[in-house]
């Protein structure tokens, strides 16, 4: 991981409350694994904690991050302009496992802003990659074209039916995933209810599944023990032991 100030190439709105941040990071981009994240330091004396943002793509010296403005920190981040410097620490987190080859059927399931760390995974998986993405409504859909370029099997669901399948993404997964002769591995990221549904789906079908989790973070590199998740092995740090965990390990609270 590197801690350095890099240049902003682009910081623009791509959907309601959603922004794309493109950084020139020649010392970092080539070390990024699918599913890893970056800490962004606002250095304004007010938002003292770095913002953990998912890395969507890393190519040709650049990092592409996508974030949602949810509070005053991310709102201030959205005010940074092209050419500004910004301090980042990356790559962080363990990322998704990359050892499963083409003998597996790769199932990628994402919800809302949680689709971001899955793009690079979809792009780098060889063989059979099927991607299922869920959003609240058509206006919230992001990265549709990027995912479409990465796989022939892209299915999108919206809660209100304004685009694609009408309803819950897990219902669509259940309808579409017929029996396969290949072993299957699921990679998922999204809101907690989605991850919980993936966990129980995977358990029922004896499928290997990896979940990328989110929790309020302090440092981002394992020192403060702020961002923990309950697992069968006790509390684990989301930033350092994760963000990707085996679905079987995670204990979601009621």
């Amino acid at each position, binding site marked *: 991981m590197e801690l350095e100030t890099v240049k902003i190439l682009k910081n623009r709105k791509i959907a309601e409350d959603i922004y794309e941040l493109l950084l020139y990071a020649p010392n970092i981009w080539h070390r990024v694994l699918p599913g890893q994240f970056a800490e962004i330091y606002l250095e304004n004396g*007010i938002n*003292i904690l770095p913002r953990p943002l998912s890395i969507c793509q890393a190519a040709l010296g650049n990092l592409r991050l996508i974030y949602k403005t949810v509070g005053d920190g991310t709102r201030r981040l959205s005010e940074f302009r092209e050419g500004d410097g910004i301090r980042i*620490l990356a790559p962080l987190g363990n990322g998704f496992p990359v050892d499963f080859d083409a003998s597996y059927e790769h199932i990628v399931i994402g919800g809302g802003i949680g689709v971001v760390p899955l793009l690079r995974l979809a792009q780098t998986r060889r063989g059979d990659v099927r991607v299922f993405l869920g959003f609240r409504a058509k206006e919230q859909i992001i990265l549709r074209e990027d995912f479409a370029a990465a796989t022939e099997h892209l299915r999108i669901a919206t809660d209100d039916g304004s685009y694609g399948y009408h309803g819950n993404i897990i219902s669509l997964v259940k309808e579409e995933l017929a029996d396969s002769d290949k072993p299957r591995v699921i990679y998922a990221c999204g809101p907690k209810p989605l991850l919980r549904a993936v966990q129980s789906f995977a358990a029922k079908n004896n499928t290997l599944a990896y979940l990328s989790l989110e929790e*309020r973070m302090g440092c981002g590199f394992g*020192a*403060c023990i*702020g961002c923990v998740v309950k697992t069968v092995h006790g509390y684990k740090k989301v930033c350092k032991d994760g963000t990707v965990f085996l679905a079987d390990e995670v204990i979601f609270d009621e």
Partner: protein
Amino acid sequence: MSELDLSVNIAGVTFKNPVFTASGTFGAGREYADFIDINTLGAVTTKGVSIVPWEGNKPPRIAEVHGGMLNSIGLQNAGLEKFIQEDIPFLRQFGTKIIVNICGHTAEEYVSVARELYDADVDMLELNISCPNITEGGIAFGTDEKALYDVVYDVKSFARQPLSVKLSPNVTNISKMAKIAADAGADALSLINTIVGMKIDVHTRKPVLNNVYGGLSGAGIKPVAVRMVHQVRTAIPYIPIIGMGGISSGEDAVEFLLAGASAVSVGTANFENPRATSFILQGIRDYMTKYGFSSLNEIKLDE
């Protein structure tokens, strides 16, 4: 120009410089070795260690507030055995002093940790009787006069290393608590721990922290910490003080030295900038050079 002397002696231990890390923000240093040279630190104060592993509190444990943060980690740690096996040897690779922050639910637990560390290769103990995030122990000792005296006295009776007592700012009269700790045998005082605070998410109308209350740290608490260091220094002229609370620059550190601290600890600033300690140490050097000071004891408050 002559060489600056940044060394400082606290309770018989000589530290190469006055910049320490504050407990709970630095683990046992491992996570920071990628950012800074641990050798350059005066001391590493470890994350609180208890006699057996502690699970800590349910998340969310972290909430950012304007210029600072709240935490309610609850002293999650892997316990003393693992600490002795793994963390002490790790830290001993570096030319820095080791201050072990010790915690317990009961006076007996604090004593057990100190006893088990009797033969350990560490330089100082810091008694954590001020953590606001655990239900038994912690702050209960730091805010009750009798309990404070007894726990300091008991731990001091069994400890080999000098003992610094980390006091809670959540009291009406800090000087009184400081005197009690000193009377009970404290060799030094660490001032201050976090201030109890709360944040509510107005959109969900729920407390942000699962624990409801947490410890406030960061720049906003610095004036409170400076005031308490000054009050304690005035009340007990002889006791060494390790000052902490919202330090993020060399000038912040100097402010504590002027208030009467012998050394400072850097906490929350490590999250804002993982290289904060080196930045602060350089800032102290710059200050000394600017005003022609050659050693730390020349930095005195003009009252």
